[in-house]
Protein backbone atom coordinates (compact mmCIF):
# COMPACT_ATOMS: atom_id res chain seq x y z
CA UNK A 1 0.00 0.00 0.00
CA UNK A 2 1.45 3.38 -0.87
CA UNK A 3 1.78 6.13 1.74
CA UNK A 4 -1.19 8.21 0.52
CA UNK A 5 -3.55 5.26 0.64
CA UNK A 6 -2.22 4.32 4.04
CA UNK A 7 -3.03 7.84 5.31
CA UNK A 8 -6.49 7.77 3.78
CA UNK A 9 -7.15 4.44 5.40
CA UNK A 10 -6.15 5.49 8.91
CA UNK A 11 -7.57 9.00 8.71
CA UNK A 12 -10.86 7.66 7.45
CA UNK A 13 -11.44 6.11 10.84
CA UNK A 14 -10.57 9.31 12.68
CA UNK A 15 -13.18 11.81 13.68
CA UNK A 16 -12.25 15.38 12.77
CA UNK A 17 -12.59 16.44 16.35
CA UNK A 18 -10.08 13.84 17.50
CA UNK A 19 -7.14 15.37 19.21
CA UNK A 20 -3.64 14.33 18.48
CA UNK A 21 -2.62 13.28 22.00
CA UNK A 22 -5.50 15.10 23.62
CA UNK A 23 -4.62 18.76 23.23
CA UNK A 24 -4.29 19.57 19.57
CA UNK A 25 -7.03 18.66 17.08
CA UNK A 26 -5.53 17.09 13.99
CA UNK A 27 -7.23 19.57 11.74
CA UNK A 28 -5.44 22.41 13.57
CA UNK A 29 -2.07 21.11 12.48
CA UNK A 30 -3.11 19.75 9.09
CA UNK A 31 -1.75 22.06 6.33
CA UNK A 32 -5.20 22.88 4.96
CA UNK A 33 -7.47 22.21 7.92
CA UNK A 34 -9.34 19.63 5.86
CA UNK A 35 -7.97 16.28 6.95
CA UNK A 36 -9.19 14.51 3.82
CA UNK A 37 -6.74 16.44 1.68
CA UNK A 38 -3.22 15.21 1.05
CA UNK A 39 -1.46 18.18 -0.56
CA UNK A 40 1.14 17.53 -3.19
CA UNK A 41 4.50 18.88 -2.15
CA UNK A 42 6.68 19.10 -5.21
CA UNK A 43 9.71 20.82 -3.72
CA UNK A 44 12.34 18.98 -1.77
CA UNK A 45 13.55 20.29 1.56
CA UNK A 46 17.12 21.54 1.50
CA UNK A 47 19.47 19.96 4.02
CA UNK A 48 23.05 20.80 4.84
CA UNK A 49 25.40 18.76 7.02
CA UNK A 50 28.46 20.64 8.29
CA UNK A 51 30.59 21.00 11.37
CA UNK A 52 29.44 23.73 13.70
CA UNK A 53 32.91 25.31 13.71
CA UNK A 54 33.25 25.24 9.91
CA UNK A 55 35.89 22.50 9.83
CA UNK A 56 35.54 19.44 7.58
CA UNK A 57 33.27 16.65 8.69
CA UNK A 58 35.07 13.65 10.10
CA UNK A 59 35.02 10.54 7.95
CA UNK A 60 32.31 8.01 8.62
CA UNK A 61 29.15 10.12 8.54
CA UNK A 62 26.88 10.51 5.54
CA UNK A 63 23.57 12.09 4.63
CA UNK A 64 21.97 10.36 1.68
CA UNK A 65 18.72 10.84 -0.13
CA UNK A 66 16.24 8.00 -0.48
CA UNK A 67 16.82 4.45 0.70
CA UNK A 68 14.60 4.87 3.71
CA UNK A 69 14.45 1.61 5.59
CA UNK A 70 11.10 0.31 6.72
CA UNK A 71 11.30 1.13 10.39
CA UNK A 72 9.01 -0.13 13.05
CA UNK A 73 7.24 3.11 13.89
CA UNK A 74 3.75 1.98 14.70
CA UNK A 75 4.11 3.41 18.20
CA UNK A 76 3.69 6.98 16.97
CA UNK A 77 0.30 8.34 16.07
CA UNK A 78 -0.62 6.52 12.84
CA UNK A 79 -2.51 9.49 11.37
CA UNK A 80 0.32 11.99 11.70
CA UNK A 81 2.97 9.44 10.73
CA UNK A 82 1.23 8.23 7.61
CA UNK A 83 0.46 11.82 6.63
CA UNK A 84 4.10 12.92 6.81
CA UNK A 85 5.14 9.82 4.91
CA UNK A 86 2.52 10.61 2.27
CA UNK A 87 3.78 14.16 1.73
CA UNK A 88 7.51 13.46 2.01
CA UNK A 89 7.95 11.57 -1.27
CA UNK A 90 10.58 14.05 -2.44
CA UNK A 91 12.42 14.44 0.85
CA UNK A 92 13.48 11.16 2.37
CA UNK A 93 16.92 11.04 3.86
CA UNK A 94 19.16 8.72 5.84
CA UNK A 95 21.77 10.01 8.26
CA UNK A 96 24.23 7.18 8.76
CA UNK A 97 27.36 6.80 10.83
CA UNK A 98 29.81 3.96 10.57
CA UNK A 99 30.74 1.80 13.53
CA UNK A 100 32.94 3.75 15.99
CA UNK A 101 32.40 7.05 14.20
CA UNK A 102 33.61 9.92 16.35
CA UNK A 103 33.64 13.66 15.88
CA UNK A 104 35.30 16.17 18.19
CA UNK A 105 33.41 19.08 16.63
CA UNK A 106 29.65 19.27 17.05
CA UNK A 107 27.83 18.60 13.76
CA UNK A 108 25.09 20.82 12.40
CA UNK A 109 22.23 19.57 10.25
CA UNK A 110 20.46 22.60 8.81
CA UNK A 111 16.92 22.30 7.51
CA UNK A 112 15.74 25.31 5.52
CA UNK A 113 11.98 25.55 5.21
CA UNK A 114 11.29 28.44 2.88
CA UNK A 115 8.64 27.11 0.52
CA UNK A 116 4.99 27.18 1.58
CA UNK A 117 4.83 23.52 2.53
CA UNK A 118 7.74 21.33 3.54
CA UNK A 119 7.84 17.76 4.70
CA UNK A 120 10.79 15.63 5.50
CA UNK A 121 11.46 12.10 6.63
CA UNK A 122 14.82 11.33 8.17
CA UNK A 123 16.11 7.98 9.32
CA UNK A 124 18.95 7.83 11.83
CA UNK A 125 21.17 4.81 11.42
CA UNK A 126 23.83 5.31 14.07
CA UNK A 127 26.59 2.71 14.08
CA UNK A 128 27.77 0.92 17.19
CA UNK A 129 30.00 2.82 19.58
CA UNK A 130 29.68 6.12 17.74
CA UNK A 131 30.40 9.27 19.72
CA UNK A 132 29.34 12.71 18.52
CA UNK A 133 27.08 15.70 19.04
CA UNK A 134 24.58 16.85 16.46
CA UNK A 135 22.30 19.87 16.27
CA UNK A 136 19.35 19.77 13.92
CA UNK A 137 18.39 23.36 13.19
CA UNK A 138 14.96 23.94 11.67
CA UNK A 139 14.55 27.50 10.46
CA UNK A 140 12.75 29.49 7.78
CA UNK A 141 9.39 31.05 7.06
CA UNK A 142 7.37 28.11 5.88
CA UNK A 143 3.60 27.93 6.40
CA UNK A 144 3.76 24.25 7.25
CA UNK A 145 6.57 21.85 8.04
CA UNK A 146 6.38 18.17 8.80
CA UNK A 147 9.41 16.37 10.19
CA UNK A 148 9.40 12.66 10.90
CA UNK A 149 12.54 11.19 12.41
CA UNK A 150 12.95 7.51 13.08
CA UNK A 151 15.84 5.20 13.70
CA UNK A 152 18.12 3.47 16.12
CA UNK A 153 21.12 4.50 18.20
CA UNK A 154 23.69 1.72 17.93
CA UNK A 155 24.94 -0.35 20.84
CA UNK A 156 27.40 1.44 23.08
CA UNK A 157 27.00 4.76 21.29
CA UNK A 158 27.20 8.07 23.07
CA UNK A 159 25.18 10.80 21.34
CA UNK A 160 24.15 14.35 22.17
CA UNK A 161 21.26 15.18 19.85
CA UNK A 162 19.64 18.62 19.94
CA UNK A 163 16.81 19.86 17.78
CA UNK A 164 16.45 23.63 17.55
CA UNK A 165 13.17 25.02 16.22
CA UNK A 166 13.40 28.67 15.20
CA UNK A 167 10.78 29.00 12.51
CA UNK A 168 9.43 32.50 12.28
CA UNK A 169 5.86 31.44 11.55
CA UNK A 170 3.62 28.60 10.47
CA UNK A 171 2.95 25.13 11.81
CA UNK A 172 5.52 22.53 12.76
CA UNK A 173 4.48 18.91 13.08
CA UNK A 174 7.40 16.99 14.48
CA UNK A 175 7.54 13.27 15.19
CA UNK A 176 10.40 11.26 16.68
CA UNK A 177 10.55 7.51 17.09
CA UNK A 178 14.01 6.50 18.23
CA UNK A 179 15.15 3.21 19.74
CA UNK A 180 18.27 2.94 21.89
CA UNK A 181 20.53 -0.09 21.58
CA UNK A 182 22.33 -1.96 24.32
CA UNK A 183 24.32 0.39 26.61
CA UNK A 184 23.62 3.29 24.27
CA UNK A 185 23.66 6.72 25.90
CA UNK A 186 21.61 9.51 24.37
CA UNK A 187 21.01 13.10 25.46
CA UNK A 188 18.25 14.48 23.32
CA UNK A 189 17.26 18.09 23.69
CA UNK A 190 14.74 20.45 22.20
CA UNK A 191 15.34 24.19 22.06
CA UNK A 192 12.35 26.01 20.72
CA UNK A 193 11.43 29.59 20.25
CA UNK A 194 9.54 29.34 17.07
CA UNK A 195 6.66 28.44 14.81
CA UNK A 196 3.26 29.84 15.58
CA UNK A 197 1.96 26.37 16.29
CA UNK A 198 3.99 23.29 17.11
CA UNK A 199 2.73 19.81 17.70
CA UNK A 200 5.47 17.38 18.59
CA UNK A 201 5.22 13.71 19.49
CA UNK A 202 8.62 12.52 20.64
CA UNK A 203 8.99 8.87 21.50
CA UNK A 204 12.04 7.00 22.71
CA UNK A 205 12.30 3.33 23.36
CA UNK A 206 14.84 1.79 25.69
CA UNK A 207 14.93 -1.34 23.67
CA UNK A 208 17.91 -3.14 25.15
CA UNK A 209 19.74 -3.62 28.45
CA UNK A 210 21.71 -0.78 29.95
CA UNK A 211 20.51 2.03 27.70
CA UNK A 212 20.59 5.53 29.16
CA UNK A 213 18.45 8.45 28.01
CA UNK A 214 18.06 12.07 28.98
CA UNK A 215 15.30 14.12 27.32
CA UNK A 216 15.61 17.86 27.85
CA UNK A 217 13.55 20.85 26.80
CA UNK A 218 14.25 24.60 26.82
CA UNK A 219 11.10 26.13 25.40
CA UNK A 220 10.41 29.85 25.03
CA UNK A 221 6.95 30.79 23.85
CA UNK A 222 5.76 34.33 23.23
CA UNK A 223 3.09 36.39 21.48
CA UNK A 224 0.36 34.00 20.28
CA UNK A 225 2.48 30.86 20.00
CA UNK A 226 0.96 27.49 20.76
CA UNK A 227 3.57 24.83 21.48
CA UNK A 228 2.36 21.34 22.33
CA UNK A 229 4.94 18.67 23.17
CA UNK A 230 4.22 15.07 24.00
CA UNK A 231 7.18 13.01 25.18
CA UNK A 232 6.90 9.29 25.64
CA UNK A 233 9.63 7.08 27.04
CA UNK A 234 9.20 3.34 26.94
CA UNK A 235 11.41 1.06 29.04
CA UNK A 236 11.39 -2.35 27.40
CA UNK A 237 14.58 -3.81 28.86
CA UNK A 238 16.23 -4.28 32.26
CA UNK A 239 18.70 -1.89 33.86
CA UNK A 240 17.68 1.10 31.78
CA UNK A 241 17.75 4.72 32.89
CA UNK A 242 15.80 7.76 31.73
CA UNK A 243 15.25 11.32 32.80
CA UNK A 244 12.88 13.88 31.31
CA UNK A 245 13.50 17.47 32.36
CA UNK A 246 11.37 20.01 30.53
CA UNK A 247 11.51 23.78 31.09
CA UNK A 248 9.06 26.09 29.33
CA UNK A 249 8.97 29.87 29.75
CA UNK A 250 5.66 31.19 28.54
CA UNK A 251 5.02 34.85 27.73
CA UNK A 252 2.54 37.05 25.87
CA UNK A 253 -0.72 35.25 25.12
CA UNK A 254 1.06 32.03 24.31
CA UNK A 255 0.28 28.55 25.48
CA UNK A 256 2.66 25.66 26.08
CA UNK A 257 1.70 22.11 26.78
CA UNK A 258 3.98 19.35 27.96
CA UNK A 259 2.63 15.86 28.36
CA UNK A 260 4.85 13.03 29.43
CA UNK A 261 4.21 9.34 29.36
CA UNK A 262 6.64 7.02 31.10
CA UNK A 263 6.00 3.33 30.42
CA UNK A 264 7.85 0.53 32.11
CA UNK A 265 7.12 -2.88 30.64
CA UNK A 266 6.91 -6.06 32.69
CA UNK A 267 10.40 -7.54 32.90
CA UNK A 268 12.22 -4.17 32.77
CA UNK A 269 13.76 -4.76 36.18
CA UNK A 270 16.15 -2.21 37.61
CA UNK A 271 14.57 0.63 35.66
CA UNK A 272 15.40 4.08 36.99
CA UNK A 273 13.16 6.74 35.47
CA UNK A 274 11.78 10.16 36.29
CA UNK A 275 10.10 13.06 34.53
CA UNK A 276 9.75 16.66 35.57
CA UNK A 277 8.02 19.61 33.98
CA UNK A 278 8.73 23.19 35.03
CA UNK A 279 6.76 26.08 33.60
CA UNK A 280 7.60 29.72 34.12
CA UNK A 281 4.70 32.05 33.42
CA UNK A 282 5.86 35.44 32.18
CA UNK A 283 2.51 37.17 31.75
CA UNK A 284 -1.01 37.02 33.07
CA UNK A 285 -2.38 35.93 29.71
CA UNK A 286 0.09 33.08 29.18
CA UNK A 287 -0.97 29.53 29.86
CA UNK A 288 1.17 26.48 30.56
CA UNK A 289 0.12 22.90 31.14
CA UNK A 290 2.27 20.01 32.25
CA UNK A 291 0.88 16.53 32.56
CA UNK A 292 3.27 13.76 33.55
CA UNK A 293 1.92 10.22 33.56
CA UNK A 294 3.29 6.83 34.52
CA UNK A 295 2.38 3.30 33.45
CA UNK A 296 4.60 0.97 35.43
CA UNK A 297 4.08 -2.76 34.96
CA UNK A 298 7.22 -3.94 36.75
CA UNK A 299 7.53 -3.77 40.52
CA UNK A 300 11.27 -4.42 40.78
CA UNK A 301 12.47 -0.97 39.76
CA UNK A 302 15.00 1.45 41.23
CA UNK A 303 12.46 4.23 40.98
CA UNK A 304 9.86 5.85 38.77
CA UNK A 305 8.86 9.38 39.62
CA UNK A 306 7.23 12.42 38.18
CA UNK A 307 6.68 16.02 39.13
CA UNK A 308 5.55 19.39 37.92
CA UNK A 309 6.07 22.97 39.05
CA UNK A 310 4.32 26.02 37.60
CA UNK A 311 4.77 29.59 38.67
CA UNK A 312 5.61 33.19 37.81
CA UNK A 313 9.04 34.76 38.17
CA UNK A 314 9.99 34.85 41.83
CA UNK A 315 9.92 38.48 42.96
CA UNK A 316 12.44 37.72 45.71
CA UNK A 317 14.90 36.63 43.03
CA UNK A 318 14.18 39.85 41.13
CA UNK A 319 14.90 41.86 44.30
CA UNK A 320 18.12 39.93 44.87
CA UNK A 321 19.40 40.68 41.37
CA UNK A 322 18.25 44.31 41.58
CA UNK A 323 20.24 44.67 44.78
CA UNK A 324 23.24 43.66 42.66
CA UNK A 325 22.65 46.42 40.13
CA UNK A 326 20.43 44.62 37.61
CA UNK A 327 17.59 46.82 36.37
CA UNK A 328 14.15 45.26 36.72
CA UNK A 329 14.01 44.21 33.07
CA UNK A 330 17.60 42.90 33.15
CA UNK A 331 16.78 40.92 36.27
CA UNK A 332 13.73 39.34 34.63
CA UNK A 333 15.68 38.52 31.47
CA UNK A 334 18.50 37.00 33.51
CA UNK A 335 16.03 34.86 35.44
CA UNK A 336 14.30 33.62 32.27
CA UNK A 337 17.67 32.83 30.71
CA UNK A 338 18.76 31.02 33.88
CA UNK A 339 15.55 29.01 33.94
CA UNK A 340 16.04 27.87 30.36
CA UNK A 341 19.75 27.39 30.87
CA UNK A 342 19.14 24.84 33.63
CA UNK A 343 18.21 22.30 30.96
CA UNK A 344 20.27 23.78 28.14
CA UNK A 345 23.51 23.21 30.03
CA UNK A 346 22.82 19.47 30.24
CA UNK A 347 22.38 19.06 26.50
CA UNK A 348 25.99 18.81 25.43
CA UNK A 349 29.60 19.93 25.60
CA UNK A 350 30.80 23.38 26.66
CA UNK A 351 31.27 24.37 23.00
CA UNK A 352 27.76 23.32 22.14
CA UNK A 353 26.35 24.99 25.23
CA UNK A 354 27.99 28.30 24.31
CA UNK A 355 26.50 28.10 20.82
CA UNK A 356 23.04 27.30 22.15
CA UNK A 357 23.29 30.02 24.82
CA UNK A 358 24.06 32.68 22.20
CA UNK A 359 21.11 31.55 20.19
CA UNK A 360 18.81 31.66 23.18
CA UNK A 361 20.10 35.07 24.25
CA UNK A 362 19.28 36.54 20.85
CA UNK A 363 15.77 35.04 21.07
CA UNK A 364 15.32 36.57 24.53
CA UNK A 365 16.56 39.92 23.25
CA UNK A 366 14.02 39.72 20.44
CA UNK A 367 11.29 39.03 22.99
CA UNK A 368 12.27 42.06 25.05
CA UNK A 369 12.27 44.47 22.11
Amino acid sequence: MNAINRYKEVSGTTDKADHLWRYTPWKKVHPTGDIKIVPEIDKEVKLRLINLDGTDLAEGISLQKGNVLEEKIEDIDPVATSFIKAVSEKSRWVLRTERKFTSEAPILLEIETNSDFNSLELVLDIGEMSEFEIVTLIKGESDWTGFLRTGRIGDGSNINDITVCLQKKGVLLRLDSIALGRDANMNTGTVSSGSERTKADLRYRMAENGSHLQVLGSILSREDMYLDYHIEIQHDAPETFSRLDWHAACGGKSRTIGTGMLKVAKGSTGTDAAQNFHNLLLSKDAEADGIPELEVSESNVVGCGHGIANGPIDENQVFYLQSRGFSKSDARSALIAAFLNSTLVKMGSTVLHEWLSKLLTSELDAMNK
Partner: protein
Amino acid sequence: MFKRDSVCTYTMESSVPLLEIKNLHAGIDGNQILNGINIEIGAGEIHAIMGRNGSGKTTTANIVMGHPDFDVEEGEIKLKGDNLLDLETWERAKRGVFLSFQYPQAVPGLQVGNFLKKSVASIKGEEAAKGKNFRELLKKSMKELNMPSSFLSRYVNDGFSGGEKKRFEILQMMLLQPQLAILDETDSGLDIDGIRTVATGINSSIRGTNSGALIITHYSRILDYIKPDKIHVLIDGKIVATGDSTLATDLEENGYDWLEERVKEGGIN
Protein backbone atom coordinates in the same frame (compact mmCIF):
# COMPACT_ATOMS: atom_id res chain seq x y z
CA MET B 1 35.55 72.68 59.61
CA PHE B 2 39.01 72.18 58.11
CA LYS B 3 41.55 69.45 58.54
CA ARG B 4 45.22 69.37 57.63
CA ASP B 5 46.16 66.21 55.79
CA SER B 6 49.56 64.57 55.38
CA VAL B 7 50.55 66.43 52.23
CA CYS B 8 49.94 69.82 53.74
CA THR B 9 46.83 70.71 51.80
CA TYR B 10 43.59 71.69 53.38
CA THR B 11 40.38 69.87 52.69
CA MET B 12 36.89 70.42 53.98
CA GLU B 13 35.85 67.59 56.25
CA SER B 14 32.40 66.56 55.21
CA SER B 15 29.72 67.11 57.80
CA VAL B 16 27.27 65.05 55.79
CA PRO B 17 26.95 61.54 57.25
CA LEU B 18 27.33 58.53 55.00
CA LEU B 19 23.95 57.13 56.04
CA GLU B 20 21.24 59.05 57.81
CA ILE B 21 18.03 57.36 58.86
CA LYS B 22 15.65 59.83 60.46
CA ASN B 23 12.40 59.04 62.23
CA LEU B 24 11.71 56.03 60.03
CA HIS B 25 8.22 54.57 60.36
CA ALA B 26 7.47 51.62 58.11
CA GLY B 27 5.54 48.39 57.82
CA ILE B 28 4.17 45.73 55.57
CA ASP B 29 0.57 44.90 54.63
CA GLY B 30 -0.74 47.41 57.15
CA ASN B 31 1.37 46.06 60.03
CA GLN B 32 3.59 48.66 61.63
CA ILE B 33 7.12 47.34 62.21
CA LEU B 34 9.43 50.33 62.55
CA ASN B 35 8.36 53.08 64.93
CA GLY B 36 10.74 55.96 64.41
CA ILE B 37 14.27 54.75 63.87
CA ASN B 38 17.20 57.15 63.90
CA ILE B 39 20.73 56.09 62.90
CA GLU B 40 23.63 58.10 61.61
CA ILE B 41 26.75 56.40 60.26
CA GLY B 42 29.82 58.38 59.29
CA ALA B 43 32.35 57.46 56.61
CA GLY B 44 34.70 54.73 57.79
CA GLU B 45 32.40 53.73 60.66
CA ILE B 46 30.93 50.33 61.41
CA HIS B 47 27.70 50.18 63.40
CA ALA B 48 25.79 47.15 64.61
CA ILE B 49 22.11 46.60 65.28
CA MET B 50 21.17 43.93 67.78
CA GLY B 51 17.75 42.78 68.83
CA ARG B 52 15.46 39.84 69.26
CA ASN B 53 13.65 38.10 66.41
CA GLY B 54 10.86 40.30 65.08
CA SER B 55 12.30 43.52 66.46
CA GLY B 56 12.66 45.04 62.96
CA LYS B 57 16.32 44.45 62.12
CA THR B 58 15.82 42.74 58.74
CA THR B 59 12.98 45.13 57.91
CA THR B 60 15.38 48.04 58.38
CA ALA B 61 17.88 46.39 56.03
CA ASN B 62 15.23 45.65 53.39
CA ILE B 63 13.85 49.17 53.51
CA VAL B 64 17.26 50.79 53.05
CA MET B 65 17.77 48.50 50.03
CA GLY B 66 14.30 49.36 48.69
CA HIS B 67 12.31 46.14 48.99
CA PRO B 68 9.01 46.83 47.21
CA ASP B 69 6.87 44.96 49.76
CA PHE B 70 7.50 47.47 52.54
CA ASP B 71 5.74 50.80 52.94
CA VAL B 72 7.55 53.77 54.38
CA GLU B 73 5.01 55.94 56.13
CA GLU B 74 7.27 58.60 57.51
CA GLY B 75 10.92 59.54 57.78
CA GLU B 76 14.02 59.86 55.65
CA ILE B 77 16.88 57.70 54.46
CA LYS B 78 19.81 59.56 52.96
CA LEU B 79 23.11 58.38 51.55
CA LYS B 80 25.67 61.17 51.58
CA GLY B 81 22.81 63.62 51.77
CA ASP B 82 20.90 62.16 48.80
CA ASN B 83 17.41 60.84 49.36
CA LEU B 84 17.30 57.08 48.78
CA LEU B 85 13.57 56.62 49.17
CA ASP B 86 12.81 57.88 45.67
CA LEU B 87 15.20 55.42 44.05
CA GLU B 88 14.61 51.91 42.75
CA THR B 89 16.59 49.08 44.35
CA TRP B 90 19.04 48.84 41.45
CA GLU B 91 19.58 52.61 41.54
CA ARG B 92 20.43 52.40 45.24
CA ALA B 93 22.87 49.58 44.42
CA LYS B 94 24.51 51.83 41.81
CA ARG B 95 24.79 54.60 44.39
CA GLY B 96 26.77 52.19 46.55
CA VAL B 97 24.28 50.47 48.86
CA PHE B 98 24.94 46.77 49.34
CA LEU B 99 22.87 44.27 51.30
CA SER B 100 24.32 40.94 52.33
CA PHE B 101 21.17 38.86 52.68
CA GLN B 102 20.28 36.70 55.64
CA TYR B 103 18.86 34.14 53.21
CA PRO B 104 20.39 34.78 49.78
CA GLN B 105 18.27 33.64 46.84
CA ALA B 106 19.30 30.64 44.78
CA VAL B 107 19.18 31.14 41.01
CA PRO B 108 19.67 27.77 39.29
CA GLY B 109 20.99 28.22 35.77
CA LEU B 110 22.79 31.51 36.47
CA GLN B 111 26.51 30.86 36.68
CA VAL B 112 28.42 32.59 39.50
CA GLY B 113 31.15 33.89 37.17
CA ASN B 114 28.67 35.47 34.75
CA PHE B 115 26.58 36.87 37.59
CA LEU B 116 29.59 38.55 39.21
CA LYS B 117 30.71 40.10 35.94
CA LYS B 118 27.26 41.42 35.14
CA SER B 119 26.85 42.75 38.65
CA VAL B 120 30.22 44.53 38.68
CA ALA B 121 29.54 45.91 35.18
CA SER B 122 26.12 47.22 36.27
CA ILE B 123 27.40 48.93 39.39
CA LYS B 124 30.97 49.95 38.57
CA GLY B 125 30.82 50.15 34.79
CA GLU B 126 31.65 47.77 31.93
CA GLU B 127 35.38 48.45 32.13
CA ALA B 128 35.56 47.42 35.79
CA ALA B 129 34.31 43.94 34.90
CA LYS B 130 36.94 43.36 32.23
CA GLY B 131 40.63 42.58 32.12
CA LYS B 132 43.41 41.89 34.50
CA ASN B 133 42.34 44.16 37.35
CA PHE B 134 38.99 42.45 37.71
CA ARG B 135 40.54 38.99 37.51
CA GLU B 136 43.16 39.87 40.11
CA LEU B 137 40.65 41.37 42.53
CA LEU B 138 38.44 38.31 42.09
CA LYS B 139 41.33 35.92 42.66
CA LYS B 140 42.59 37.83 45.71
CA SER B 141 39.13 38.10 47.27
CA MET B 142 38.36 34.43 46.72
CA LYS B 143 41.67 33.46 48.26
CA GLU B 144 40.96 35.64 51.29
CA LEU B 145 37.61 33.90 51.73
CA ASN B 146 39.01 30.40 51.13
CA MET B 147 36.86 29.88 48.04
CA PRO B 148 38.11 27.55 45.28
CA SER B 149 38.05 28.78 41.67
CA SER B 150 35.59 25.96 40.82
CA PHE B 151 33.02 28.08 42.67
CA LEU B 152 32.75 30.33 39.62
CA SER B 153 31.20 27.64 37.46
CA ARG B 154 28.47 26.80 39.98
CA TYR B 155 25.03 28.37 39.93
CA VAL B 156 24.21 31.30 42.21
CA ASN B 157 23.53 29.91 45.71
CA ASP B 158 22.21 26.68 44.18
CA GLY B 159 23.13 23.82 46.49
CA PHE B 160 25.44 26.04 48.52
CA SER B 161 25.94 25.21 52.19
CA GLY B 162 25.01 27.91 54.74
CA GLY B 163 28.67 28.90 55.04
CA GLU B 164 29.20 29.05 51.26
CA LYS B 165 26.21 31.35 50.87
CA LYS B 166 27.57 33.78 53.43
CA ARG B 167 31.06 33.73 51.91
CA PHE B 168 29.57 34.37 48.51
CA GLU B 169 27.73 37.42 49.84
CA ILE B 170 30.99 38.77 51.25
CA LEU B 171 32.79 38.02 47.98
CA GLN B 172 30.22 40.18 46.17
CA MET B 173 30.75 42.94 48.70
CA MET B 174 34.50 42.82 48.18
CA LEU B 175 34.12 43.06 44.40
CA LEU B 176 31.44 45.76 44.42
CA GLN B 177 33.25 47.88 47.04
CA PRO B 178 30.07 49.61 48.23
CA GLN B 179 29.76 52.92 50.02
CA LEU B 180 27.46 51.32 52.56
CA ALA B 181 27.36 47.61 53.34
CA ILE B 182 24.44 46.24 55.32
CA LEU B 183 25.17 42.77 56.59
CA ASP B 184 22.04 40.99 57.71
CA GLU B 185 22.97 38.16 60.06
CA THR B 186 25.97 37.27 57.98
CA ASP B 187 27.32 35.38 61.00
CA SER B 188 24.32 33.09 61.48
CA GLY B 189 25.00 29.52 60.46
CA LEU B 190 28.76 30.03 60.39
CA ASP B 191 31.26 28.16 62.54
CA ILE B 192 34.05 30.00 64.34
CA ASP B 193 36.46 29.71 61.39
CA GLY B 194 33.75 30.93 59.03
CA ILE B 195 33.00 33.94 61.25
CA ARG B 196 36.69 34.80 61.39
CA THR B 197 37.03 34.54 57.59
CA VAL B 198 33.93 36.62 56.95
CA ALA B 199 35.00 39.21 59.54
CA THR B 200 38.38 39.51 57.80
CA GLY B 201 36.58 40.21 54.53
CA ILE B 202 34.37 42.85 56.14
CA ASN B 203 37.29 44.57 57.90
CA SER B 204 39.38 44.66 54.73
CA SER B 205 36.50 46.17 52.76
CA ILE B 206 35.46 48.86 55.25
CA ARG B 207 38.27 49.75 57.63
CA GLY B 208 40.55 52.46 56.33
CA THR B 209 38.13 53.42 53.56
CA ASN B 210 35.42 56.03 53.23
CA SER B 211 32.79 53.29 53.25
CA GLY B 212 30.64 52.30 56.17
CA ALA B 213 28.80 49.23 57.38
CA LEU B 214 25.73 48.33 59.34
CA ILE B 215 25.94 44.86 60.85
CA ILE B 216 22.77 43.16 61.96
CA THR B 217 23.30 40.32 64.38
CA HIS B 218 21.88 38.34 67.27
CA TYR B 219 25.23 37.45 68.73
CA SER B 220 28.31 39.26 69.94
CA ARG B 221 30.74 36.68 68.44
CA ILE B 222 31.23 38.45 65.10
CA LEU B 223 31.59 41.76 66.91
CA ASP B 224 34.66 40.37 68.70
CA TYR B 225 36.40 40.37 65.32
CA ILE B 226 34.93 43.54 63.84
CA LYS B 227 34.69 45.91 66.82
CA PRO B 228 31.91 48.25 65.75
CA ASP B 229 32.06 51.94 66.56
CA LYS B 230 28.50 51.90 67.84
CA ILE B 231 25.92 49.30 68.77
CA HIS B 232 22.19 50.02 68.59
CA VAL B 233 19.59 47.87 70.29
CA LEU B 234 16.25 47.55 68.57
CA ILE B 235 13.12 46.63 70.49
CA ASP B 236 9.65 46.76 68.93
CA GLY B 237 10.83 48.77 65.96
CA LYS B 238 12.60 51.43 67.98
CA ILE B 239 16.21 51.93 68.97
CA VAL B 240 16.20 51.85 72.76
CA ALA B 241 19.90 51.98 73.48
CA THR B 242 23.12 52.93 71.77
CA GLY B 243 26.54 52.21 73.11
CA ASP B 244 30.02 50.88 72.46
CA SER B 245 31.09 47.25 72.20
CA THR B 246 30.57 46.68 75.91
CA LEU B 247 26.83 46.84 75.21
CA ALA B 248 27.13 43.67 73.12
CA THR B 249 28.86 41.90 76.01
CA ASP B 250 26.09 43.01 78.39
CA LEU B 251 23.44 41.66 76.03
CA GLU B 252 25.30 38.39 75.58
CA GLU B 253 25.49 37.92 79.34
CA ASN B 254 22.14 39.30 80.46
CA GLY B 255 19.83 39.04 77.45
CA TYR B 256 17.31 41.70 76.46
CA ASP B 257 14.95 41.47 79.43
CA TRP B 258 16.68 44.18 81.47
CA LEU B 259 16.45 46.59 78.54
CA GLU B 260 12.80 45.81 78.00
CA GLU B 261 12.14 46.42 81.70
CA ARG B 262 13.84 49.77 81.48
CA VAL B 263 11.86 50.69 78.40
CA LYS B 264 8.63 49.80 80.21
CA GLU B 265 9.69 51.83 83.18
CA GLY B 266 10.29 54.75 80.88
CA GLY B 267 13.99 54.81 81.67
CA ILE B 268 14.97 54.63 78.01
CA ASN B 269 13.31 56.37 75.12
